[in-house]
């Protein structure tokens, strides 16, 4: 992302976790309910400090688990409070049933997820196993590429999540440690800019004794199918609102975000597909490979749900080969989640590339720019053997 054209912005070196808490503060959240878990801990620690010091006028609810944290968030949100939370890994899974409830009740909670591997065996390090297990919960899901992106996405998430045309909870994913614990130069916009971008929260339905409503009722077989269709339609319909919210943020700050970002894709024969912070390592590889005359480029997915199927088809069908890196292994599924999604998006296209899926960077294993070269070589070898697709884990000792 290019540096901001906005004069009021102030650049500060800050740990990304703290920048995320500051973003929630600048969004003027009314309530926070969260339970600390590595590597998200600094986010909630800093928020509790901001509330304790009076810098942030919000209700901070200490809870005994993540299940309670998200349940409390639904309660505060239903009462009309702008609500923020954050979690990671086991904490996200402990929230699992409440994730569906928050989405089904259309509560526009914003949750930062410091992505981490799942136990067992216990690992506190980064991959995307946690969020991929929550892929189908009905939330809008965004992946940050760097600290500035994560900071901006928290503010933008409130804007599009709360929009009356959307009213959906939003997960802002940022890689544990490789983003969460890194000190980065982050440009903070002026509070007035954020206030002008993000109006006070005015929910359509709130709990109030004068206007009795039933929230979270049960649904008989006669109506459950219709409720799911309504959710599907609403999630798909959120796309233009998300795009508009990003476009307006771009106008105000000079930082432009898209559901699908492309990097040196012009004339590329082979395109890498990545999500999250490792996209920047992929960019380094692309630069080095281009230097050597290899026609490669990168497609970076920022918006995972709703899946930007049109943009993905459009950009990927220009290439001959697609190399997808997944950060989670769904055992027995014959492919990582991004890989299978990309393949299914391309299946009915008349001109479609070969697709190769590689699982890398599990539980904190480094993925260097050179590893993208390995993926490229494997894909080209597969193509040479006449394979249209290949799926495997890379970097496994055997």
């Amino acid at each position: 992302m290019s540096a901001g054209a906005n004069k009021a912005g102030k650049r500060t070196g800050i740990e990304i976790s703290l920048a995320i808490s500051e973003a929630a503060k600048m969004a003027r959240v009314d309530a926070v309910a969260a339970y600390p878990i590595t590597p998200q801990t600094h986010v909630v620690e800093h928020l509790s400090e901001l509330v304790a010091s009076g810098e942030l006028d919000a209700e901070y609810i200490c809870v005994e688990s993540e299940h309670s944290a998200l349940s409390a968030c639904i309660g505060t949100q239903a009462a009309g409070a702008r609500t923020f939370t954050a979690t990671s890994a086991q904490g996200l899974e402990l929230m699992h049933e409440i994730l569906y409830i928050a989405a089904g009740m259309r509560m526009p909670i914003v949750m930062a997820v410091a992505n981490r591997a799942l136990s067992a065996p216990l690992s506190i390090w980064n991959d995307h196993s946690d969020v991929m297990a929550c892929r189908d919960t009905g939330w809008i899901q965004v992946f940050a590429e760097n600290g500035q992106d994560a900071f901006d996405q928290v503010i933008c998430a409130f804007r599009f999540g709360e929009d009356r045309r959307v009213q959906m909870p939003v997960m802002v994913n940022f890689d544990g440690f490789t983003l969460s614990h890194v000190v980065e130069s982050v440009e903070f916009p002026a509070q007035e800019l954020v206030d002008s971008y993000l109006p006070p929260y005015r929910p359509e339905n709130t709990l109030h004794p004068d206007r009795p409503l039933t929230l979270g009722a049960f649904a008989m077989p006669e109506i459950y199918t219709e409720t799911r269709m309504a959710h599907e339609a609403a999630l798909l319909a959120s796309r233009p609102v998300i795009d508009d919210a990003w476009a307006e943020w771009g106008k105000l700050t000079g930082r432009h975000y898209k559901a699908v970002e492309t990097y040196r894709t012009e004339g590329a024969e082979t395109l890498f597909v990545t999500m999250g912070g490792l996209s920047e390592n992929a960019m380094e590889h692309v630069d080095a490979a281009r230097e050597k005359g290899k026609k490669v480029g990168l497609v970076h997915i920022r918006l995972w749900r709703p899946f930007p199927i049109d943009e993905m088809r459009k950009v990927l069908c220009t290439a001959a080969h697609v190399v997808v890196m997944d950060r989670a292994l769904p055992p027995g599924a014959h492919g990582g989640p991004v890989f299978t999604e990309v393949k299914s998006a391309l299946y009915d296209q008349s001109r479609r590339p070969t697709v190769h899926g590689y699982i890398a960077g599990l539980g904190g294993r480094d993925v260097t720019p050179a590893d993208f070269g390995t993926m490229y070589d494997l894909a080209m070898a597969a193509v040479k053997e006449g394979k249209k697709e290949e799926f495997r884990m890379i970097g496994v000792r055997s």
Partner: protein
Amino acid sequence: MAKPMDQYTWRELLVGNVISEPGSSQEYKTGDWRSLKPVFDNVKCIKCGVCWMFCPDNAIMQDADEFFCADLDYCKGCGICARECWPGAIAMTEESK
């Protein structure tokens, strides 16, 4: 609800499936999975109201003569009323098919 549930299209549902009409759960007739129903013997009944107090589903009401009877739209046939009726005025009898 303004119309029977099976006539709503997905577009007509309120955001988050909110129900704006209080007390609409009365429309769900929850008694249809009962296999036994309570039959009241008004000769033995002394109108003490114990059955009314114990029914977990608020399915006991009083008729015009103030005798207690079951609202079969909601009675689930658990038999608690028959068990608690100390004069033995309630018999759980099989629902006829």
